[in-house]
């Protein structure tokens, strides 16, 4: 009987503690991902600034690269810039809405909150990587 009580107590303890450990892990993973995205944030801004500069100096671009069609290039740059800004906004939205001290009555609810936030920031991470690659490729055409 004593054995049964002990085993039951261990099982109850293990079940009760598991979500807490999971919450800690998912929260830490979310924060880690946030830092990865922030490390790329400067690049997103940097490329926006480079495209801004090119747009302001289309005449210089034409003189350095006479073959370019500035009307087409301008349209492409505007599109790239809009995409970079959209990516930046998605990160800003995530940060401003994220609650690092989220609390709830149940551990399951807390876990779900951080899991959802983790999935959201993972999407932002993907978007950042795509936009950085796309804009880097474009800027390299003009040695930027």
């Amino acid at each position, binding site marked *: 009987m004593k054995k049964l009580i002990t085993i039951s107590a261990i099982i109850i303890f293990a079940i009760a503690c598991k979500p807490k450990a999971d919450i800690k892990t998912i929260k830490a993973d979310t*924060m880690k991902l*946030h*830092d990865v995205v*922030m*490390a*790329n*944030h*400067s*690049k997103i*801004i*940097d490329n*926006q*600034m480079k495209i*801004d500069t090119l747009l302001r100096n289309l005449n210089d671009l034409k003189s350095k690269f006479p073959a370019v069609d500035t009307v087409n290039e301008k349209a492409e740059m505007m599109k790239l810039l809009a995409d970079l800004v959209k990516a930046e906004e998605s990160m*800003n939205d995530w*940060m*401003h809405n*994220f609650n*690092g001290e989220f609390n709830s009555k149940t551990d399951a609810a807390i876990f779900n909150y951080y899991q959802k936030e983790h999935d959201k920031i993972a999407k932002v991470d993907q978007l950042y990587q795509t936009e950085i690659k796309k804009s880097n490729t474009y800027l390299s055409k003009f040695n930027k």
Partner: protein
Amino acid sequence: MKITTLIFAIGLTVVTGCNDKPEKLPYLQMEIVDNEVNGKITKDTTFRTIPDFKLYNQDSTIVTSKDFDNSIYVADFFFTSCPTICPTMHRNLFKVYKKFENNAEVKYASHTIDVKYDKPSVMKAYAKKMGIKGNNWQFLWGTRDEIYALAERNYMVYTKEDNKAPGGFAHQGYLILVDKQKRIRGAYDGTVDAEVQKLMTDMDILLKEK
């Protein structure tokens, strides 16, 4: 015996005196440039300085580089909604602030990189929550181009050259120590206690510098 003791004491004083040479912090952005004098090229050492700037603080008041004249200061880049590095860095910087609270020669310049959201009113609330009083610690706001230019071309040049540092210069938690002539004299990881202790020691050294 007495003479021997005296000679030893004098020797010890001389040795101690020699070691008493004031410590000096390095210059992180020192450059050797060619200088032409009467047709002759000579090497000259120059120190890069933080250029003039004009930004807004948490009271929506204009703050310029002149407001940091005759002071040493610690600069950093942050954003109020940051859930990871920035809170730790600012908690540590607050310890520095408390240590030098009554020293008018010590100032702080925290630049927000989230210029769309961190308007002066948001930073005012942030400063109040941290317990910052007076205007020795300025929370600075400017346009995206102004802030990133200051970070990339001036304050963070050193950290960008550091291969160990990950990408995202503005989110590394660096605290940059600037002297009274606006020269960078130290860069410290604001999230590491030992580095913040070193910053405080270095600030003491810098304050003694003539």
